[in-house]
């Protein structure tokens, strides 16, 4: 095997020229990933805001008003309607005009003053279980805070007997975009990179240029690496842009080492681009190859990567399968470097996974590419 850098670079230059002349590939390479980050960054959110609320205040006392104010002060709820009529409140819930009905029964203030239990009812629309649970959680914590304050006032003490001083690390504000955006980078790059290279070998077969290429002494490793090189450049530009978009548009903190991210990204991209070339060489048709590349990258990266669904809660088969989804490891790397600022001392296992992915992707690409015409 006599590899020549000269031939490899000739291959890379030619591939870059194709890219420069093809607006569709250019759009796919640059515009689509940036647009996807922004679009998905806004759309995918686990934060529940602006929960519409109806309040049925049967007590109409100072205490009951204080409780309602406390609910509103958190900024998560907005009152759509105050009512005295239980049936009307239920109708609002039926129609979906409100998500939650808070009922404060008569005697609320009196019970509090007497040190008796003073129950408050929260009726929630459980059709969207996730939102319902979060809304209940918010309401519950606001009410229990209120309750603690009342108890403290009653006992004339300045501090709670037991105070759970909880603090959230890494994503202090618990903004879900901080978690989603770094993960999105992994999923989007997985899809885009594989789609881009899925075209390259198939195009040579479809246009008949493979015949002339195969007639030259170029080595298949030179062909694969030469084709990969311009796309690796594009991928690195894309990831840099995505990181900047995350920081500027979504205020995601970047605390780690950019060079570590660069190294990990390079390995991840080599693996993904290689996978695309493998698919392209195996199918020899641009249409089939892009569809296969989309299917092979999109679903596993979205579902089994831990971006949207917690892997630990999945059935055993899916948990095992998720171990071969490269995005799963890259998401840990991205979140670790973005939010935690950790280095290789923590991410070494993911580093090994990235190296393995790069080797497998490139290996598949080289082995699947043959210069012989059939």
């Amino acid at each position, binding site marked *: 095997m006599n590899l020549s850098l000269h031939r490899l670079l000739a291959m890379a230059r*030619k591939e870059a020229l194709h890219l420069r002349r093809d607006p569709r590939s250019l759009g796919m390479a640059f515009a689509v990933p940036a647009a996807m980050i922004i679009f998905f960054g806004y759309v995918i959110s686990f934060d529940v805001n602006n929960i519409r609320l109806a309040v049925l205040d049967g007590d109409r006392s100072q205490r009951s008003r204080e409780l309602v104010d406390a609910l509103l002060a958190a900024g998560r709820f907005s009152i759509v309607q105050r009512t005295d009529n239980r049936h009307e409140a239920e109708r609002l819930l039926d129609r979906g005009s409100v998500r939650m009905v808070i009922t404060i029964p008569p005697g609320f203030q009196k019970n509090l003053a007497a040190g008796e239990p003073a129950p408050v009812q929260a009726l929630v629309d459980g059709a969207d279980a996730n939102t319902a649970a979060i809304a209940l959680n918010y309401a519950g914590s606001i009410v229990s805070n209120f309750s603690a304050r009342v108890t403290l006032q009653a006992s004339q003490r300045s501090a709670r007997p037991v105070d759970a001083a909880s603090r959230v690390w890494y994503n202090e504000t618990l903004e879900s975009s901080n978690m989603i955006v770094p993960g999105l980078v992994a999923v989007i790059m997985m899809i885009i990179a594989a789609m881009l290279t899925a075209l390259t070998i198939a195009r040579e077969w479809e246009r008949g240029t493979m015949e002339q290429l195969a007639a030259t002494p170029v080595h298949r490793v030179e062909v694969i690496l030469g084709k990969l090189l311009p796309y690796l450049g594009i991928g690195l530009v894309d990831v840099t842009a995505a990181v900047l978009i995350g920081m500027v548009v979504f205020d995601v903190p970047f605390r780690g080492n950019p060079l570590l991210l660069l190294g990990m990204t390079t390995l991840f991209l080599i693996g993904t681009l290689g996978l695309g070339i493998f698919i392209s060489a195996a199918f020899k048709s641009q249409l089939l190859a892009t569809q296969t590349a989309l299917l092979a990258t999109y679903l596993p990266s979205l579902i089994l990567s831990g971006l949207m669904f917690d892997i630990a809660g999945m059935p055993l088969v899916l948990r095992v399968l998720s171990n071969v989804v490269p995005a799963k490891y890259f998401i840990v790397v991205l979140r670790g470097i973005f939010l935690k600022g950790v280095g290789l001392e923590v991410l070494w296992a993911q580093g090994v996974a990235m190296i393995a992915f790069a080797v497998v992707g490139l290996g598949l690409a080289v082995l699947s590419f043959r210069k012989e015409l059939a």
Partner: protein
Amino acid sequence: MKPAVEVRELTRTFGTFTAVDRVTFDVREGEIFGFLGPNGAGKTTTIKMLAGLLAPASGTGIVAGLDIRTQAERVKQLIGYMSQLFSLYADLTVEENIAFFAGLYEVKGPRLVERRDWVLEMAGLTQHRRRMTGELSLGWKQRLALGCAVLHQPPILFLDEPTSGVDPLSRRNFWDLIYTLAAQGTTIFVSTHYMEEAEYCHRLALMNRGRLIALDRPAALRAQMPATILEVATDNGPLATQALLGAPGVIESAMFGRAVHVVVEDRGHALRTLPGLLESRGLECREIREVPPSLEDVFVSLVRREGGAVAG
């Protein structure tokens, strides 16, 4: 002198179809070796095997002293190959295509400049060096493809139907280039299905249905022709062709321009009897004379002698 190409019992099958069937021949160094036959005769498959693009099923091929089975990649450094279908990059300019193939053949430095300019001039593309290759006429595309195949000055050049689909003037220009390369010592292996192009070759191999049916100089091939061709000038070509077809001693009768070409077994007998035969049918026989057989006549008669049909 060692032959440039040595082929022994070379065979290639695709499934149950035998595209090339135990073909044996040598190509001498420096000659223009023509490969003639209809589409599907196995010419392209043979050339692809010799260019290292297809593996033979059996038999051997030695190109430039290297075995095509085990040293195909080294063979590729010593040959130029131009495929039947245009296979340069349409979205690259003329110069970019040249630069790309020069890169793959590791032609660099001052030699690159010299070879690039030589190719541009040879192909007549100096003025159009920055044009997209896809916009060029077919004749220009083919000359550019030839140029890209000889950038590295290979001693052997394989051209697979290089002029198919090109107008006669461009074809003539292309053959001038082939002669120029041959004069510089390049061995040229060219396939064609144009009979008149076959005449330009030093030696000619005739292929039909995967088999080599004859190999010689064009003149010698014509001399092998067992029968005689008579050209008959008459007042009604179509009727005369019909009348002569069933006549005793006539093998074949066909229109040839305004005249009729008749293939006969016995020249003397035919010259004596055919004018009378035509006149008995009310047709005028203005002239009857022997003409040298064309390569097409030779080809058809050789295929007949083999007892086969012409593929295509």
